[in-house]
């Protein structure tokens, strides 16, 4: 054993041989000569081997898909543990000349066996394939993908891909990039919502460093809150949601900042007419680094005064004010070899206001807060425990004021969350098990009106206290070289707690005190995936999952504005449940192309529609008494092909889909299309790198128009022309299509910095894509003439922008 170690080790080898030597010398001095002779010859052999010239074998480990460094991997030579990769994925070994089998093992990756011949110092670059490749996942991460692995990693968007997409007003947006992938349907201009595989925008769970973000959008949905410089990775699961997540029907969007402990100061900044952002990373000690990023718009100085100058102030409102900010703070601390402590805090908000013509000051503002503390502990070679405590907060306020009249509505959510996951790697199994507890407090509509000092009485604001306790377990099992399965399940106990006043059907009331349980139920969310490799470059994947969502996003506006609010399930508000099956065929064509075809079907129950509008919320009505419930069905086929290398790169994604709804109280129970039912949805993204300096990119998107409810007739009451509406969602908006272009010039890098300048044009042929249609009557009753015309509201015309970026690096 010892000799074997000598053969293959580095520093450890020296320690062992010395120990052996001393013990042998001890034996010799005790005079057991003959018996010891044999041992001595071994020692001589050891010494001889030790004297052989040794070379340094070093290397870096990367994730095959994201190209991020892989830390904490065990690197063994000829099956003996020898080294562990550091934060940069770096490892080094000293080896004598010879031929070796290098094995790299990691909890989350397939074991890599690599045959190597050592004849001198050697530097390796090795790529590891994620075991979770069995899961259907989209990863948007920091570096270019260059996957040549056997395991299919079908839906991959890298940060480089995002950079290649034309930026909207100079802002690159990782969440918006997801919308260019098949199946993650877009809402249209000014709508950050994702309508994944026929679902609703409230069926996506967005988590930032394990803390839930309830409204991940800025500027009425034009941007997401994710500042691309502070994000290292975005993953999206749209089928077979893994068991460690639950509570959403459509998708999980997992956004993470960098977990790297940096060893040098670096900074990155950019400026456009809209905003500036700065991201700084600073090492504090060799085991601790912090990073912070700030993004702040200054449209109140650049954009709005220009618009006012164009005479907009003469219109119905003026003095627009709108700015937003994002603040990220991260701390990454390594404690010893196998413990890490990560802290992340995010705060961001929007502040929107304008004056209407009659001296009314309108304001709309919202804020997201998310913070999390994660302790990652590696236990031995094959166990990792991640424990996270997090807080999420969301606040929305809409208000208006005319002199001494003040009115508005606010909405609040507070979540406290504790989650612990143990990941165990056992030969062909990758097991995960964990527990999670979340405490929610929702206050969806708190109205306020003050008229000349008299505050209107609205009573106690609607407040709902709920909690969820969950256990989950999953296993990824490699049955054979070609076949792998994933099976997971999550069991959740959900409770609605007091204080709450329950109004019974006979109008009697039951009051529940703080902490008492009004209703509770349990649900199970199973998830199953089978992956079968067909050839070295193609595979088949089948998946099924059933999800339960005890939370509803209730849409109160005609477009997806932030006033939409979250409402938890109560005894009178059932949960949303969904079943999804999907089958995908994945094929790579050499190193250049990857492609897939994915077919899905899903059904959903417990979907909600609010029977009123935002104005009804100001009445402090009980939301639970004003909801309509129904079901939905969605199916479709997705096509995707991506060219990954060469001067010209990019992808084409196309989805043919149908999504319908069925509500007893809408359209007399007849089926109707979902609002964002897109029969066709096409995205083309391409980028061309001309030379060292210049690169160009373009994107085109086309989608069937969304459904809306149009009037079928009109009538007159007190001189007003009133619309009478036809079938709910019975009409279609014009198709949505748009092309964006951009050009970037990278200046020659200097020693400590590099810069780039980009020009981009959004909506280059100035397509007026309506977000809303309405019908307006005009005329004069005295002259007895009335004309009705349909009008559309389009918000984003052709928009050119310029953006300057600066990257600084110590050394």
């Amino acid at each position, binding site marked *: 054993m010892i000799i074997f170690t000598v053969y293959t080790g580095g520093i450890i080898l020296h320690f062992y041989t010395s120990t052996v030597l001393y013990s042998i010398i001890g034996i010799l001095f005790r005079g057991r000569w003959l018996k010891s002779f044999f041992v001595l010859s071994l020692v001589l052999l050891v010494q001889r081997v030790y004297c052989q010239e040794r070379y340094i074998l070093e290397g870096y480990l990367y994730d095959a898909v994201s190209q991020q460094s892989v830390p904490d991997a065990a690197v063994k030579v000829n099956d003996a543990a020898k080294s562990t990769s550091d934060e940069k994925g770096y490892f080094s070994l000293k080896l004598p000349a010879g031929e070796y089998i290098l094995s790299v093992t990691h909890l989350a990756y397939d074991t890599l066996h690599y045959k190597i011949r050592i004849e001198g110092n050697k530097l390796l670059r090795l790529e590891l394939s994620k075991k979770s490749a069995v899961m259907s996942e989209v990863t948007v991460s920091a570096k270019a993908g260059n996957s040549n692995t056997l395991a299919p990693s079908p839906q991959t968007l890298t940060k480089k891909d995002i950079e290649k997409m034309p930026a909207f007003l100079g802002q690159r947006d990782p969440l918006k990039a997801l919308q260019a992938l098949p199946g993650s349907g877009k809402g249209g201009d000014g709508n950050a919502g994702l309508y994944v595989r026929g679902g609703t925008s409230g069926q996506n769970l967005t988590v930032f460093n394990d803390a839930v973000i309830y409204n991940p959008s800025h500027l009425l949905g034009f941007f997401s809150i994710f500042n691309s410089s502070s994000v290292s990775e975005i993953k999206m699961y749209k089928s077979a949601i893994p068991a460690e997540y639950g509570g959403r029907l459509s998708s999980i969007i997992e956004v993470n900042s960098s977990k790297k402990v940096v060893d040098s100061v670096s900074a990155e900044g950019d400026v456009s007419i809209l905003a500036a952002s700065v991201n700084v990373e600073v090492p504090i000690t060799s085991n601790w680094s912090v990073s912070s990023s700030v993004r702040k718009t200054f449209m109140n100085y650049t954009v709005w005064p220009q*618009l006012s100058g164009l005479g*907009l102030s003469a*219109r119905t409102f003026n003095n*627009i004010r709108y700015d937003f900010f994002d603040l990220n703070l991260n701390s990454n601390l390594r404690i010893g070899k196998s413990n890490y402590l990560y802290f992340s805090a995010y705060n961001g908000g929007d502040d929107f206001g304008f004056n*209407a*013509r*009659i*001296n*009314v000051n*309108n304001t709309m503002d919202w804020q997201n807060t998310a913070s999390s503390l994660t302790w990652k502990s590696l236990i031995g070679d094959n166990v990792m425990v991640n424990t996270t405590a997090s807080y999420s907060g969301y606040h929305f306020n809409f208000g*208006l004021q*005319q002199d*001494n009249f003040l*009115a508005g509505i606010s909405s609040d959510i507070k979540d406290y969350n504790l989650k612990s996951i143990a990941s165990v790697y056992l030969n062909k199994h990758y097991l995960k098990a964990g527990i999670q507890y979340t405490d929610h407090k929702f206050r969806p509509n708190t109205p306020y*009106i003050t*008229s000349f000092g*008299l505050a209107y*009485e609205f009573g106690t604001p609607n407040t709902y206290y709920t909690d969820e306790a969950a256990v989950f377990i999953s296993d990824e099992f490699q049955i054979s070289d070609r076949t792998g399965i994933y099976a997971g399940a999550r069991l959740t106990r959900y409770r609605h707690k007091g204080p709450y006043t329950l109004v019974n059907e006979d109008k009697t009331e039951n009051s529940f005190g703080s902490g008492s349980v009004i209703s509770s139920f349990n649900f199970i969310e199973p998830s199953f995936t089978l992956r079968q490799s067909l050839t070295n470059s193609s595979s088949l994947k089948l998946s099924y999952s059933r999800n339960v969502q005890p939370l509803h996003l209730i849409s109160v*506006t*005609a*477009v997806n504005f932030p006033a939409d609010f979250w409402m938890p399930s109560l005894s009178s508000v059932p949960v949303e449940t969904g079943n999804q099956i999907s089958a995908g065929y994945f094929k790579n064509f050499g190193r250049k192309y990857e492609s897939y075809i994915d077919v899905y079907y899903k059904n959903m129950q417990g979907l909600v529609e609010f*029977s009123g*509008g*935002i*104005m009804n919320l100001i009445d402090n009505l009980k939301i639970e008494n004003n909801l309509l419930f129904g079901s939905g069905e969605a199916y479709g086929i997705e096509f995707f092909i991506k060219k990954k290398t060469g001067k010209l790169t990019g992808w084409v994604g196309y989805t043919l889909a149908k999504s319908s709804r069925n509500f007893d109280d809408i359209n007399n129970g007849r089926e109707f299309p979902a609002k964002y039912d897109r029969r066709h949805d096409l995205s083309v993204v391409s980028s061309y790198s001309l030379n060292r300096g210049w690169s160009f990119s373009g994107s085109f998107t086309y989608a069937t128009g969304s459904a809306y*409810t*149009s009037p*079928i007739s*009109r*009538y007159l*009451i*007190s*001189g*007003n*022309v*009133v*619309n*009478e509406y*036809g*079938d709910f969602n*019975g*009409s279609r908006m014009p198709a949505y299509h748009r092309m964006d272009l951009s050009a970037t010039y990278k200046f020659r890098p200097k020693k400590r910095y590099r810069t780039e300048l980009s020009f981009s044009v959004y909506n280059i042929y100035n397509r*007026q894509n309506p*977000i809303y249609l*309405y*019908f*307006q*009557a*005009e005329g004069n009753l005295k002259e*007895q003439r*009335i*004309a*009705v*015309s*349909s*009008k*559309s*509201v*389009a*918000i984003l015309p052709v928009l050119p922008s310029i953006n300057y970026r600066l990257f600084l690096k110590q050394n």
Partner: protein
Amino acid sequence: MRKLEAIFLLLFLCGFFGCKKEPSTTSGGYKPKVVVEGWIEQGDYPYVILTRNIPFFSAMDSAQLSNFVIRHAKVSVSDGTQTEILTSKRDTNYFPPYIYRGSEIRGEAGKTYTLQIEFEGKVLVSTTTIPPRVALDSLWFIAKGDNNEKAQLFVKFRDNPNQKNYYKLYTKTGSTKRYTPTLLSNQDDKYFNGKELIIQANRGPVNNLTIKNDPYFAKGETVMVKFSSIPKEGYEFWSSFQDEILNSSNPLIGSTGRIKSNIRGAGIGIWCGYGSFQYQIKALP
């Protein structure tokens, strides 16, 4: 309270967002209905305007417009003891210029009135009551505008704590016959029961055929103010009506398409009793 809706009308329309004409679209599902607008004021006779709903998108002239007026229905009003058949007359104070009018029954506070309409074999029925009227404590104006050349109306009243009340506030100027609801027109006392309320009144648009609207009055102008108590069904109708009129063109709000009619049968609209006080005041801040 309902001011929010009113103000939303003015937001975002055609301003920040660009507007553009879209080609007309047609859509099936049209069902002919009788549209009823009827009222009985305390101390006055009942009035009813009957029209049809029509599927129109393009411009209409006076000839087409006159086609959708229902002039030959049998319209009767009953106060429980007495029933009167209303007669149809041309009256250019209203649009369309035909109105059914009574001449015997006069509205009394606290009484319930039943409207019955028989037309082309259909029968439409509705009932309403006239709630007790509530007087304003005071009315005054405050100077507005860049040069204080305009005046804004303020009214004050005290709600009765022992009564369920719904209110509606109107103004008019000049010789027009009909009052126009203010932007903050409908009030529910559940928010201020038994308290004194001051309303900063914004003058409403005459109708939704124009988006031009001045919330203030010209200095020195003679202003008529009507303050009505309305029954619950009237409040629900006018609130939802206002939502639709003001907000259906606003992308922030949209239409809920749910006007709460109190007409039973193949019709839509409102039959409402009003207990009103009217005031005449010069707009002098």
